[in-house]
């Protein structure tokens, strides 16, 4: 067949066809995700405070320059790192340990496996309340135990001491997050063929060498992706802190997400809150990009 020059309208129709099929979901995504995101980001460059309803309008980067001199912001940023790092590292290590235990056969394993899910089934609000009671020396046992083993000089509430307050929500968060790592890592562990361990046993490897040279390389891709997702989630996770300490005492437990929340809904300053949110978004994007690069550069194990 000789090549016929198709009229541009026909070519346009061919090019547009897939987009037409996709349009319902594209429109939906635009409406529920992109639009709010763009509006939210645009707030960061405006003065929108319900306390000053007549003083609103575009103000350029003014919110961001205020941010640079805001000691509370820098403190929250530091606390966010502390909170995210400690929570994720402890969740991961304990979750991995639990997954390794669950991967061995023992009596009642099914029951334990079901119980491990439990922290997830409890509403965050309820677990936050329960944990703040547990840390309260009047009704909770934890301060007395900590004092008994010598960690605390006397049974006081760690949530009311600015030096230790952040550890309260971190401990609650670790308890809350272990199941996530335990379940995902257990699934990855169970996909490692058993004959590799048998071959390694014949090759003379000890249990520790098996773990380091076989288990960990197999888990690495899963570890990277779960740690990334979890860290982003934890950095944004304000519920526990908000209920347990409300960011206090003296902002010692304020993280960026709780600071955003209080700025927006307590001080009703949506412009400034959006500016903080944009900074958090950029930090998390940079972090995710870094981890994805790392993941790519690792030699992946064929699944």
């Amino acid at each position, binding site marked *: 067949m000789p090549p016929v020059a198709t009229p541009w309208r026909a070519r346009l129709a061919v090019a547009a066809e897939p987009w037409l099929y996709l349009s319902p979901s594209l429109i939906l995504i635009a409406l529920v995700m992109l639009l709010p995101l763009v509006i939210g980001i645009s707030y960061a460059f405006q003065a929108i405070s319900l306390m000053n309803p007549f003083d609103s309008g575009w103000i350029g980067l003014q919110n961001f320059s205020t941010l640079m001199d805001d000691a509370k912001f820098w403190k929250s940023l530091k606390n966010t790192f502390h909170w995210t790092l400690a929570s994720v590292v402890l969740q991961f290590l304990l979750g991995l340990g639990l997954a390794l235990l669950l991967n061995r056969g023992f009596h009642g394993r099914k029951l334990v496996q079901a119980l491990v899910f439990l922290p997830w089934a409890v509403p965050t609000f309820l677990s936050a309340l329960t944990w703040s009671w547990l840390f309260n020396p009047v009704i909770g046992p934890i301060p007395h135990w900590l004092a008994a083993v010598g960690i605390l000089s006397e049974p006081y509430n760690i949530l009311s001491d600015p030096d230790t307050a952040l550890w309260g929500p971190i401990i609650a968060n670790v308890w809350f997050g272990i199941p996530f790592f335990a379940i995902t890592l257990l699934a990855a562990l169970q996909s490692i063929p058993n*004959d*590799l361990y048998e071959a*390694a046993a*014949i090759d003379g490897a000890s249990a520790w060498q098996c773990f380091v040279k076989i288990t960990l390389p197999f888990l690495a891709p899963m570890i990277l992706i779960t740690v990334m997702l979890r860290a982003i989630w934890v950095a944004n996770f304000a519920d526990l802190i908000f209920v347990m300490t409300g960011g206090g005492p003296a902002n010692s437990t304020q993280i960026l997400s709780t600071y955003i929340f209080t700025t927006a809904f307590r001080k009703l300053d949506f412009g400034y809150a959006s500016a903080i949110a944009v900074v958090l978004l950029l930090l998390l994007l940079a972090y995710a990009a870094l981890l994805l690069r790392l993941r790519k550069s690792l030699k992946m194990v064929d699944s």
Partner: protein
Amino acid sequence: MARIDIDSLYKRFGAETVINDVNLSFEEGDFIVLVGPSGCGKSTLLRMIAGLESISAGEIRMDGKRMNELPPRDRDIAMVFQSYALYPHMDVARNMGFSMEIQGRPEEEKRSKIEQAAEVLGLNRLLQRLPRALSGGQRQRVAMGRAIVRDPSAFLFDEPLSNLDAALRVEMRLEIARLHQQLGTTMVYVTHDQVEALTLADRIVVLDGGVVQQVGTPMELYESPANLFVARFIGSPTMNLMDIKVLAQPLGEQAFLSEASQLGIRPEHLTPVDAGEGHLQGRVEVVERLGADSFIYAQVPGAGRLLCRSKGNTSLKPGVPLGLHLDLPHLHGFDEQGQSLRHA
């Protein structure tokens, strides 16, 4: 090199006895093949020798030393798995050198041993590849390389060729035979394929239902099977078996016939003759010509289908009546229990 002795060995999984009173001795440098149908306990027996499976009762000794309680790494054995069990995240060189890496051997020693083994197996060009970039046959070689590098006193193979296609299987079979001649190390080789058993073994152990049916050289097993199971299992095409009644009249004088309940004769000892002659009368059903041999399937009233194997071509055509001559010295008789009457 090691001598392996197995005494009254049992393995139970719950109520099921998978290895039942096995007694065996493997001489230094022997190539032993454990053969039997799927599920008969071959892998279990091999894994007990390797130390991957605990021993329910009995004893395994290597060079007189009790092995029961020793972990696999203290047994000085190497094993090639059916699945190869290559470490997928390590390249070929590291896979082969893994045992030395574990022992913290010097880099120089590792490299020379790996290169030596790669030379033997023709893997030199593949040392930097990951297992997933290898063909089935190459993976198989790497698995063997990993075993050779360790220079063990015994090699254990668990159906190493069953994942390969037919042509490659023949090639690797020769390779393994060559390896045994070159190294002279004791090898214990598990397979369900009796051709592999006959071609590779110095001695064959036939297992069924966890019980040793017979131990012997390939020719012993072929020429005097101890029972019906071995008679049916060893040899391809299989031995012709028929009820004693069919032959009671034409063979009246044979000594062991009085106790026999079944008779067996291999296809090459059954010769087609003119109709009306020979011991049995029947009709040609199918003729298969393989070039060097011809297979003649004959329907014999009372005995069912019997197979004759004759040299070269044949002029017989399907449907033609024929007589069958039995080479009587090669006739096998089996009693009610299936035990051979000829076997001591």
